[in-house]
């Protein structure tokens, strides 16, 4: 894995990876209406970042997508999930109470706090898997010096 891949791969990756990210956000947000949810959507967002890192090489992509960004994304997702769970105690009786109104079925804004929980889980899974991928690649970068 030297300095990224050929020109064709780089042009296509630059063009396609925002579309992958939009698709991942769509699957997260419509988790309560169609198949999907937080878990596959988070992994799709992570794979958009992985595509950029693999096609542009480790050194160039590391300047844009750092490890601290991925770690922050993961922590923010976990905090959103836990805060929503604790607000159940404040507003009602017990942990994980669904306190937002339910609305009519088959609308985008319905089903209580399930869309917000999906966003939290999506951020957590996406950030976590990209962070562990970066760790596996950077281990070789820092141990062997420049290239291999």
């Amino acid at each position: 894995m030297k300095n990224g891949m050929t020109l064709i791969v780089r042009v296509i990756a630059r063009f396609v990876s925002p579309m992958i990210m939009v698709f991942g956000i769509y699957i997260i947000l419509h988790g309560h209406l169609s198949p999907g949810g937080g878990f596959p959507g988070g992994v799709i967002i992570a794979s958009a970042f992985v595509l950029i890192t693999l096609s542009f090489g480790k050194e160039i992509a590391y300047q844009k997508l750092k490890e601290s960004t991925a770690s922050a994304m993961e922590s923010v997702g976990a905090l959103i999930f836990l805060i929503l769970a604790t607000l159940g105690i404040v507003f009602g009786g017990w942990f994980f109470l669904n306190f937002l109104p339910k609305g009519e079925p088959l609308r985008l804004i319905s089903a209580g706090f399930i869309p917000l929980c999906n966003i939290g889980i999506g951020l957590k899974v996406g950030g976590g898997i990209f962070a562990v991928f970066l760790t596996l690649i950077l281990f070789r970068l820092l141990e062997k010096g420049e290239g291999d």
Partner: protein
Amino acid sequence: MPEIELYLLITLMIVGALVAVHTRYLISAVISLAVVGMALAVAFLYMQAPDIAITQIVVEVLALVILIIAVSIGKEVVDIKGKRETLTIGVTALFVVIFALFAYRALADLPPFGSPLMTVSQHYVEEGLKQTGSANLVTSILLDFRAYDTLGEATILFTAILGAFAVLRKIGRKAK
């Protein structure tokens, strides 16, 4: 035979797994694992589980990337062939055959394929849309009826990733 497609898919998975176990080149084994994973995603789709088919395909691709990183570290691309220890292979094969015989007797006690018991799930199916308001019943189980399990899963993800960070920490030693 009613579920002929499922028989064919599981046979394809068994053939792919046998190739992945016995081939000499490690890259060929990784590609055979990709075949097993894709056939598994089609089998999930056949059994009316689209949520899981999406998750399996996407996770499969990332698992392949991680395995190729692992294979490309070592300088050996070929499987290691030491002395052929006949006694070990014989005893292991005997153990596997005995295990399979016991499992055959035990698996006959399950409810037959295609008619599950559904004692708890009947309540989730009937009350799911009314009590949670979400049209996807699997999401309503994951995030409303059984949200503790999702919290446990988030904890496992966090701990595993923290473990991977802690094992591979070499920054600070080389930069001197």
